[in-house]
């Protein structure tokens, strides 16, 4: 490989070409690991599309669930998901963003703050089904809310809270210290600095985090099954105190049925679910590229 005669050395068996070859092989293997992941993603998407496309029709949006596949739809599930998302957002956004502001801008460096921070970090790692048990015990039973939308939304809000807190903190942290100092030097209080500067400048990033948290909520199934979101709802939910079902639960229900027609319906439901998630993520990316301030 080398023509540099002066660099040859008798005391070492260099064998550089072999070492390079090993490196090249490793690089290719590592790249294939990523390709394998991507290939799996594509396989999954193609499989779902092939299964679900024949079942995709407007009937899915207008019909209630049914035991006859050609009459079954997602009407109540889609409405339930929409309701749940709005209620969850209404609960989780103020609490999550508020907690983020507190921890980043107001909190003193003491043990209570440390304790809260460790708590948030730990909650992010608690399995979602545990939140379901919390919702079942606390909201459904103890508060007597029953298996209603509001109980589901409260459970979901607690589930996505750590995500909103963490992204809010990251967004706030990206605002340079010099901005805060400039505002404080004008005689603003720390809350005024947060309200008129920090929050304004970090809003796009916070919003991005909120959208991601909501897309997590919309795909969650397990905690809602645990609190008892029913799988057969043949009416439109009218308010927060109605019982409900959601899109992923209806999909789960159809997967569990033995007839393959229902599996086709499930795949069609998945296509709708993925389309919703995709548009939410696209919105988040657009927001980030369009509005985010780069310091």
């Amino acid at each position: 490989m080398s023509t540099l005669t002066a660099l040859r050395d008798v005391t070492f068996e260099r064998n550089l070409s072999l070492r390079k070859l090993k490196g090249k092989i490793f690089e290719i293997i590592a790249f294939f690991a990523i390709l394998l992941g991507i290939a799996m993603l594509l396989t999954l998407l193609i499989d779902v599309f092939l299964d679900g496309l024949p079942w995709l029709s407007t009937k899915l949006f207008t019909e209630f669930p049914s035991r006859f596949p050609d009459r079954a739809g997602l009407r109540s599930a889609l409405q339930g998901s929409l309701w749940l998302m709005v209620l969850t957002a209404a609960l989780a956004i103020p609490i999550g963003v508020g907690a983020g502001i507190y921890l980043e801008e107001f909190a003193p460096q003491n043990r209570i703050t440390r304790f809260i921070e460790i708590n948030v970090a730990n909650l992010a790692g608690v399995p979602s089904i545990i939140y379901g048990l919390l919702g079942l015990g606390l909201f459904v039973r103890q508060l007597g809310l029953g298996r209603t939308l509001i109980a589901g939304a409260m459970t979901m809000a607690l589930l996505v809270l750590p995500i909103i807190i963490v992204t809010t903190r990251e967004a706030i942290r990206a605002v340079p210290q010099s901005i805060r100092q400039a505002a404080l030097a004008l005689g603003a209080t720390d809350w005024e600095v947060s309200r008129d500067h920090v929050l304004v400048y970090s809003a796009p990033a916070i919003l991005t985090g909120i959208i991601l948290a909501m897309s997590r909520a919309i795909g969650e199934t397990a905690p809602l099954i645990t609190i008892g979101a029913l799988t057969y709802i043949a009416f439109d939910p009218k308010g927060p105190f109605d019982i409900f079902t959601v899109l992923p639960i209806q999909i789960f229900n159809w997967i569990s049925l033995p007839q393959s027609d229902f599996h086709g319906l499930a795949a069609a439901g998945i296509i709708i679910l993925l389309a919703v998630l995709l548009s939410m993520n696209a919105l988040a990316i657009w927001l980030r590229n369009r509005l985010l301030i780069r310091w």
Partner: protein
Amino acid sequence: MDNNHVVLETKNLNVFYGNFLAIKDVNFQVFRNQITAIIGPSGCGKSTLLRSFNRMNELVPSARSEGKILFNGEDIYDPAIDPVEVRRKIGMVFQKPNPFPKSIYENIAWGLKINGFRGSKSEMDDLVEQALRGAALWDEVKDKLDQSGLSLSGGQQQRLCIARAIAIKPEVILMDEPASALDPIATLKIEDLMRELKENYTIVIVTHNMQEAARVSDYTAMMMLTGEGERSGTVIEFDRTSVIFTRPKDKRTEDYITGRFG
């Protein structure tokens, strides 16, 4: 200038970062078993020049160079030459001590292993001891070779890095402000060590400390920002250190050395 054997020589060297010409048109030589210092104000491209000698600049994705660097007469930028090979022969010690988070022993043995050393355990032990003695560190660490390299003091860490560099028997050792992160006593030890090392190695050192350059080096290259808007660094004067510090030819060198600059 005397007729020492030239180990390294740059010919019309230009180094770019993207479109930015960081150093331009550098021509100077490094002589065998001598210490050559590169001095100059900060940001004038001293480190860039030093890192050209073992092709470390290539690790910056946008970096690119023109011209030649001859190592014992052969161009190290020849497309047929592998940078890995170059670095094996031209070692480097960095500004901040950067021992691997491995044992003291492993810090040194690792370079030997990857470079194909196939000897027995006792031969390896000998080489490790040799390298540590060479870096004047052996007496301080011989009883704790299995401790982490990070457990040493800053000065010891830097000598461990020097030991690591000399273990694979390079011809040239590049030193990028090796004492800038150290206290005065540790600095003195490193400087003493450099004088010993030059018996067997050729040393190129970048320093912002002119006293240090005057104390340890045999030759000095003075770098300065020149060119359009004074943004590209170049070597404006190169000579024996005694000459540079007493009778500089360039007015800018004189200004810098007497403290009238920057």
